[in-house]
């Protein structure tokens, strides 16, 4: 079981992320028992075998930063969980991938951030359309994770539009012109 953040709360969760070992072929990787998030390569190699599981809601697919989300275009309606991997927290490709999944590909299911997911990036991740954040395994104690929830709300009124609030501030709120100060 791992801790995830969903709807602003810490929850425990039994999805397991399958990562291929160095040199391991997608075709013969052993699937974990229970609910599994598999690499795109595994999904593509064994689509027929995995499709029923995906439709049953016990299998999701994860994309690496280098992978094109359009590779999943046809399958998105079947998938209830897509994850995007952050190999390092400072690798920001996942933000664009998530944005494309939500805006261009119209993906409406669970979008999960996995990998080096740290609290100082939570806010940006939510804004780019992630609905579940799975912090790096072992990174936070329960107390630290509780405290980290505050980072979900680092900024109350961001300027620019993003997936969570597509309209920029100037369309969301009336922003007043300058009240000329008395000199």
């Amino acid at each position: 079981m791992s801790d995830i953040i969903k709807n602003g709360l810490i929850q425990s969760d039994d999805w397991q992320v399958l990562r291929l070992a160095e040199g391991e072929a997608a075709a013969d990787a052993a699937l974990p028992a229970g609910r599994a998030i598999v690499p795109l390569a595994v999904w593509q190699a064994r689509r027929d075998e995995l499709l029923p599981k995906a439709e049953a809601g016990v299998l999701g697919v994860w994309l690496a930063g280098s992978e094109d989300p359009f590779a999943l275009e046809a399958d998105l309606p079947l998938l209830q969980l897509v994850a995007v991997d952050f190999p390092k927290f400072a690798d920001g490709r996942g933000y664009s991938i998530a944005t494309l999944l939500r805006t261009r590909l119209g993906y409406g299911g669970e979008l999960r951030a996995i990998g080096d997911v740290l609290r100082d990036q939570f806010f940006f991740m939510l804004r780019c359309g992630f609905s579940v954040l799975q912090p790096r395994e072992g990174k936070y104690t329960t107390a630290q994770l509780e405290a980290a929830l505050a980072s979900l709300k680092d900024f109350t009124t961001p300027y620019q539009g993003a997936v969570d609030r597509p309209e920029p501030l100037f369309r969301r709120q009336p922003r007043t012109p300058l009240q000329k100060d008395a000199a």
Partner: protein
Amino acid sequence: MYKYDEYDQRIVDERVAQFADQTRRFLAGELSEDEFRPLRLQNGVYIQRHAPMLRIAVPYGNLNSKQLRMLGHIARRYDHGYAHVTTRHNIQFNWPKLEDVPEILGLLSSVQMHAIQTSGNCIRNVTSDPFAGVAADEIADPRPWCEILRQWSTFHPEFAFLPRKFKIAVNGAKQDRALVQAHDIGLDLVYNEAGELGFRVLVGGGLGRTPIIGAEISAFVPWQQILNYCSAILRVYNLHGRRDNAYKARIKILVKALGVEEFARQVEAEFVHLKDGPSTLTQAEIDRVAGRFDDPVLAPLPQDAGYRAHLAENKAFAAWARRNVRAHRVQGYASVVLSLKPYGVAPGDLTAEQFDAIADLADRHAFGEVRNTHEQNVLLASVREADLFEVWQQARELGLATPNIGLLTDIISCPGGDFCALANAKSIPIANAIQDRFTDLDYLYDLGELELNISGCMNACGHHHVGHIGILGVDKNGQEFYQVTIGGSQGNQAALGKVIGPSFAAAEMPDVITSLINNFIDNRHEDERFIDTVRRIGIDSFKTRVYAERAARLEARETANV
């Protein structure tokens, strides 16, 4: 100056709280050094030779007197009594303590300032023309556009962790003074044939270790679409820019690898989906932002007779006016450049007392506002002609009236080896040694406009590639050496300088510059500038002269030592 509204203020306040907590967690060991580094960098905190360096954002260079006094206060209270104006309009403190940074950011926030995204792999402070709004050759005022870009790029979630830093510059005048060709995105405000306003868009310019002049990817993007278009550029870059090698991670490398046409095609393919989306700008928003600049409304004044009389009578004042006073769009006004290049001072340094005094000057004579220039000087944008004599007298007392703007001694220099951990060599002593060689003001005038830029390493913080004369610190077997380029230039005819040959020891540098100058004088046509002569005759004769005179010097020294 743009004045914050409640939203602007809230975002900055929330950032102060966020960074205070991050710093606390770092000091408590909850955040590792690797995890904290990108966070502190995005707040302008570098760890340098002596202490952390704190870089404070000065959006497109604009500062008001209250902010200047606060910078003076911070310099006194948390630093060694001075700060540094950078080539990207920002202000840097060299000696603050990390524990003090949250408190400093709190003070800055109280005067509508911050250090957001002044470093790190994100969209940096947007830079522009210091003469914005007062230049006679202006097509459109770039400042509201800069502010709109500032807001859009501040904590942009999709572009918070780019492959590398990202710099945007906006020019709104016929003569580019914002170096748009040396930026990741350069925006030129233009009117199309139908008389509509938009932007010519350049990408992939930049100096650093792979200097490249930016390439045009769109001749005209309507102003309504500019955020959408920039988003398209950044998305292509964010997804495809290299992340395996920091030296090859700038957008210029991606543009070069794909080719400009292919890059433009990919941007266009993204842009079609973003076009007319929610981030499309509206006239109401432009007007609102423009309206939050409380610019003075200037009515034309008759030409001031007193000013002209002083010019005729006072040679020193006339000399200053000739170099440091610039024409203003409105009759009866002028712009004044305060020189931060007196002899013997680190180019761009200001003391706490000077911050306060400039604030007073600005309040009395310049509507309470100044602009930092990328040449590392400070501009009073609008001064009445009738005030110029008094401004000069006061600036002189402050050591800010060296009449050398645009001349050889108005040197752009990075902090170099005295402060910077990345340096190959010192920069400031070289700048000072060259200034010491050229002390005769009449001689300097006769030489005319000449830009000399110095960087302490190939990161090019001192813009050496675009100096008419560029000096680059290099490491030769652990010794500090200097490579010289000539023929670089900023502006509409931006060009990268060419290396003249093997590098020189520090002590040789004034002589090398003398040789270059003498060759210029011997070949100059009438009032040609140094750069014009180099363009006309090429670098060969300069090269020959420099190395011949160097050989002669070495020989003379050996003879003397026999």
